[in-house]
């Protein structure tokens, strides 16, 4: 009986003009978006190589630039990657890291780029809810529901068949979209996108998470449909809820968070740091002046003076790290508080939860950026400063002879590359919210349908 109802549902859905129009629209939009993303990704990878070659020749014991590696799945989900600094300059005369430059991307402010997350999170969820809103209320209007329930079949089985009847075709379209998108990205990224085992498994998980989002949306549509008597009311309610949770709430969430938990403007923080740095610079210069005078008065040799100077430098670098580090950490805490609040209030939207999971999965989320920042800090503390000082200690600037070069050889930046299970573990919270929403909505749908008046 379940199969009979399912077959009927599938036939109805298959004959639905919505599905056909969606397929046509997707077949045009998906390759276009994937083509643009492939081109962007190719340029991103080329940029990375260009920047590496530029910085390798420019890095010195005074300053180096560390570049953020390109996430391999960026064409599928751009996430916050484009909006965050992708390189940092470390200098030995300051404890602050600064972001050298960025590209001009004004159009992104008006129209955020379309990637696979938009296609699934916005367009596919709309398609799903348009299919799901009719399942119960529509059948009641047609009188078909009475006939179905007149047979020897439980209401839960009918509901299960109806939900499956929506999820199956949307899943087929989803797989078609992911496949088409992947093919276009692979072909047009000219070898820069690597469809290796790791990325392929990540893409499979990506698709599974997308299916969960579609189930949540289908369950929402069915729950609404089972709570009202008329299909037009169901459609109105479903469309309104979809607009709020997919379009409006995710957009307002971060702004509400920033007005509820404000942090000082970035320039104010920079100014505070600059004033602290200037205070330290003054003190350091005073100590150097005093030491230089003492050494001269004590008729100390230049090599001993150089060693004393290096000791002083080391001491001041540590003090800067400590005092500026404190300010930086305070700021980070405030910003993290605000971001965590923004995510907390936005996460109930399946679209936000979906993007959060994708951020962890594709390495384009805020966690990956934080990991990069930690790696930059580690590199500064463990590599750049000790090796820079070591290189400096081997130099003899008082001799006019050529010094042994100022090139600093550092190990490549050690950014963590977590395994798929670790990435999924990082996304446990948004993923569990999605699963909880799915269970709650399915249960609500079942409860409403149990009491549904089929007349």
């Amino acid at each position: 009986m379940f199969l009979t109802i399912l077959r009927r549902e599938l036939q109805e859905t298959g004959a639905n003009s919505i599905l056909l129009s969606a397929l046509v629209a997707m077949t045009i939009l998906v390759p276009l978006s994937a083509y643009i993303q492939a081109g962007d990704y190719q340029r991103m990878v080329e940029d990375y190589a260009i920047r590496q070659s530029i910085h390798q020749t420019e890095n010195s014991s005074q300053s180096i630039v560390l570049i953020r590696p390109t996430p391999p799945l960026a064409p599928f989900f751009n996430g916050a990657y484009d909006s965050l600094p992708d390189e940092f300059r470390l200098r030995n005369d300051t404890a602050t890291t600064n972001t050298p430059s960025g590209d001009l991307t004004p159009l992104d402010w008006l129209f955020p780029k379309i990637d696979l997350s938009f296609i699934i999170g916005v367009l596919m969820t709309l398609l799903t809810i348009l299919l799901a809103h009719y399942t119960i209320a529509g059948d009641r209007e047609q009188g078909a529901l009475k006939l179905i329930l007149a047979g020897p079949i439980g209401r839960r089985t009918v509901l299960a068949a109806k939900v499956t009847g929506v999820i199956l075709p949307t899943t087929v379209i989803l797989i078609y979209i992911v496949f088409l998108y992947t093919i276009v990205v692979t072909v047009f990224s000219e070898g820069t996108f690597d469809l290796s085992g790791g990325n392929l498994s990540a893409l499979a998980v990506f698709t599974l998470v997308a299916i969960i989002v579609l189930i949540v949306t289908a369950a929402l549509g069915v729950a609404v449909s089972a709570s009202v008597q008329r299909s037009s009311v169901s459609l109105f309610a479903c469309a309104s809820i979809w607009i709020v949770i997919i379009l409006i709430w995710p957009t307002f969430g971060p702004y509400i968070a920033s007005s509820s938990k404000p942090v000082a403007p970035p320039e104010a923080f920079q100014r505070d740091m600059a004033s602290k740095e200037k205070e330290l610079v003054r003190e350091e210069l005073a100590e150097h002046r005093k030491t230089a005078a003492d050494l001269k008065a004590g008729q100390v040799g230049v090599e001993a003076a150089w060693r004393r100077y290096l000791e002083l430098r080391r001491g001041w670098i540590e003090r800067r790290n400590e005092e500026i580090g404190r300010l930086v950490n305070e700021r980070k805490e405030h910003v993290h508080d605000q971001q965590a609040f923004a995510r907390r209030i936005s996460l109930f939207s399946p679209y936000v939860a979906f993007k959060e999971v994708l951020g962890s999965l594709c390495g384009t989320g805020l966690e990956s950026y934080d990991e990069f920042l930690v790696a930059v800090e580690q590199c500064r503390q463990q590599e750049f400063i000790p090796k820079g000082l070591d290189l400096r200690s081997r130099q003899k600037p008082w001799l006019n002879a050529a010094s042994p070069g100022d090139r600093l050889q550092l190990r490549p930046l050690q950014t963590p590359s977590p395994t798929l299970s670790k990435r999924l573990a990082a996304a446990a919270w948004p993923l569990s919210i999605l699963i909880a929403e799915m269970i709650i909505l399915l249960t609500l749908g079942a409860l409403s349908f149990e009491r549904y008046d089929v007349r």
Partner: protein
Amino acid sequence: MIEGTQDCKHPDNLSKGDFGGKQTMEPGRSLIWLIARKEIIANIRNFKTPVALVIMTLLLLLSAHALALDYRNRLNNWSVNRDSQRDPIVGGRVSYDLSDGSFSYGVGFSHPPPIHSPQPFSALIKGMDGEMDRSANVSQRIVIGARHGELATSALFDTPDTSFVVKLLVSLFALMFSLDAAPREKEVGTLRAMLAQPIRRRELILSKSLGASISLLAPFAVAYFVEIIYLHLAHGLLNDRQDLVCAMLIFGFVSFYGIVFAHIGLFISTITTRTRIAITTALLAWATIVLILPNASVLMAKLLTPTPSYNQLNARLRDARRRILQEEAENNSAARTVRPSRQSLPRIYEIERQETDNYLASKKDQNRRARLFASLSPAGALTFGLSDLAGTGTDAYNAYLDILGSSRDVMLDALKRSLDLSRQDADKLMQEAIETVANRQRRAEPLGADLRSSIIPITSLLAWAVLFGLAACWRFKRYDVR
């Protein structure tokens, strides 16, 4: 005189033959208004208008509050940056002069690069204003600072400004008000009764359009002016006359947008026979027009106007510099190959100027083309048109790039002239150039210029409104009212 119309031939338009002709014009006009009034009253009674009023007011107020705070924050950011420019530069050099040799140590801390002030109207329509908050260090090159990482959570989604709320809600409500013009009236049987009156079908569509537009624009007007009053009273924004005129123009622009969607709704209602199908079709059309077409047109513009990335520009500048150094080394084996000679510097400056200008020109071209393509769809026209009117759009951004370019020219000219001067005079000249550049801030364009910028989007909206209006009339002539 009898005016022969196609309407008369339609079997369902029973009494129309008796009322064709001049004497029907007066009753026709009063009937148009009568039906429009009936629509407006029906929309109030079935709570559509009150719901639209409440939702639009709430969301516009929320948007105004969020964006006003955002503007305040950006303004504080800019004012702190401006104050920082006046902070003293701290630094110095200490010489370790020993009996058997000497070395020195120098350290310094200077100002942060300047940023441009945000536009007050960005509290209403943010447009591209956020992109101009970035620091811009102008010397012989233009170095645009990275975006602040702290805004990353909001960068994942659209900006919730008035343009966003209007783009989504005004279009949806317009469809909601106009969609049941034919199928719903047909389902409840009032369509036949109406057509039994002395009214032509196109007049009926006109009255429906009038009713839907007034039902939509009246609550929007209230919500929008509540928003403007809130911004004025609670945040001290939009104070002068030009701001108010601009706010009125924005209202006018949004009205056109609403009418386009009201006509789209009417058209859909004339091609469908059942309300549910009409709503579903309208939702799909709405998603295509509002969510897909504008983004797809920007994608097309990017595809057709590829621009180099900032890093590619840097690589080109570096290559040019390296080429000149190589030539120098080939011509003069004694020449140093790390730094260019004084004679080569003007050449390097010129190449850098040329390459950077090409880069900026390609960005501007891409922006213009994106605006042109996006303006072909109503939602794209709205986004670009409103941002142009608010002075936060493409032209304002391109003007900002022009300021950066001309500031760079000031610096380059000073650098060139300083080559022939003594060290002291050169320093003085460069200091003057730096001050000139630091004082160059972008200014709000006069209203006339903003209006000129938005001519294409306005024309596009008008064309869409007329097109769908005519299409609805044409389809309704053939509509089976039984």
